[in-house]
């Protein structure tokens, strides 16, 4: 009887809480699709507006989560995925736009760190004085820490082991460059503003979610890494992620 109760107990617990995974992969729908089609033993679950796919890729248990192209969706989905799947590593990947003029299309930027560059304070300026973003001050995110203290943080750290693994990959085009992945829900096409962002935040490139995912991972105590292909076509970063998973130990 006790044994039957124990079995029931374990089964119900599994229903209530999904299995932990080794790696959480967060990207756009287009970047996730080629990975989703390769998942072994796939399972799908949805929480509110966010859907997750779990299974095995390259011998690793993974959860796939859609970032959906903006910080809010990316942070919400990452929080839910960390809570439900308890990954040991978060990988944010996809395409990005260069801030560093030395970067070229096809280069892979591997995260040394992340910068969420959406914070600003403008100077007091009267009506008619205009608006000049090149004179704004940066406003870093102030992540909550234990003891109810917020800590202003210009950049969030990336996992050193993942950086070493990613730096040893071979990619079809371009170079592998270690850098700062910047994100904001912005598409910056003013060259002077891009230069200003790079000067202030040290960004190598921009996308719409990676640094926010990194901030979320830091809040919840999970290591994070980022792989971003400059001007990458859909699926380019996914093939690099598969290589990364093969190499990851």
């Amino acid at each position, binding site marked *: *009887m*006790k044994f039957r*109760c124990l079995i029931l*107990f374990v089964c*119900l*617990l599994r229903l*209530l*809480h999904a299995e932990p995974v080794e790696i959480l992969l967060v990207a756009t729908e287009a970047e996730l699709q080629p990975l989703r089609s390769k998942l072994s033993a796939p399972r799908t679950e949805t929480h*509110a*507006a*966010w*859907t997750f796919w779990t299974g095995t890729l390259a011998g690793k248990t993974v959860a796939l989560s*859609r970032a*959906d*192209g*903006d*910080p*809010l969706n990316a*942070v*919400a989905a990452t*929080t*839910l995925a960390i*809570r439900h799947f308890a990954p040991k590593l978060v990988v944010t990947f996809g395409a990005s736009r260069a801030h560093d003029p030395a970067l070229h299309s096809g280069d892979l930027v591997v995260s040394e760190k992340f910068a*969420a560059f*959406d*914070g*600003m*304070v*403008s*100077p*007091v*300026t009267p*009506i008619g*004085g*205009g*608006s000049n*973003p*090149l004179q704004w001050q940066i*406003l870093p*995110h*102030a*992540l*909550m820490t*234990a003891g*109810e203290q*917020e800590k202003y943080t210009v950049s969030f750290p990336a996992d050193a082991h993942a950086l070493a693994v990613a730096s040893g990959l071979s990619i079809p085009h371009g170079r592998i460059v270690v850098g700062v992945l910047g994100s904001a*829900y*912005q*598409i*910056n*096409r*003013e*060259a*002077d*503003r891009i*230069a200003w962002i790079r000067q202030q935040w040290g960004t190598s490139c921009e996308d719409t979610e990676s640094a926010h995912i990194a901030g*979320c991972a830091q*809040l*919840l*105590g999970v290591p994070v890494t980022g792989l971003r292909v400059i001007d990458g076509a859909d699926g380019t970063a996914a093939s690099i992620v598969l290589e990364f998973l093969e190499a990851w130990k």
Partner: protein
Amino acid sequence: MKRLLTLFLLAVVVVRGAEPVDVLVQGAEKLEVQEIIAALKSPVKVTIGPFSFWTGRIGSHSVAVSLTGQALINCTVATILGIEEFSPKMIVNQGTSGAQAPYLALHDIIVGRRSLDYGNFITSIRRLGEGSAPLEWRSLPQRLRDPVTGKFVEFPEGFAGDASALAIALRTRNPMGRVFAGTIGSAHEVNLELDRVRWSANTFGMAVEEMESGHVAAVAHAYGIRYIAFRVVSDAPYDGVPFYPLAARATGLFTVSFLENLPALPANP
């Protein structure tokens, strides 16, 4: 058998989270939650990662008060954790803000007819030396996926505040200033250039700017949870009033009165 059953029930509580509450009340900073925590009857502190929650009762409601921390990353994580842990029927996000409408003064409170994220944009193309023209940037709306169809839905106007909560809030006394319904805009920005303040007020209809309520509104919408935001004016750039953090006391006291006025909430569908 009895011991196993007890163990199982305990495990269910641990895995599924704490007891559900009627209302999740949020503030980004300690000054923004201290009056509300002080009003809690039988308070119990719960910590999840770096985030603190205090549960108890105010009026007829069971409440979890959440110290979210400022801006999108903190408040989105804290909101998801708060919803998953406490399954609230309503979320109240409240705190300080900068006036964007010139008629607003220190300690006035805006009740969110709607809340939106106004900090997202695509710039025009400009070469080196051609500068930056923020008043020409085109806004990008917050999007959420419809959980049934999986398709994106855009929310350029943001998210409406709960109509009955709005009506009750407009009948609640602000001990330190006036109360208006209006639009609350969120971004990780402090705008003190009056031309840009006027631009965002005209473009989005914003009465005040702050850093959380539009993001929390999006999450609440995704979960189908009733939502309302209150923002007290703590700085007023038209009047040259710099940030006065103690203004948070007004919205804290206002929120306690609101909760005391709020009728019992029906169960979630």
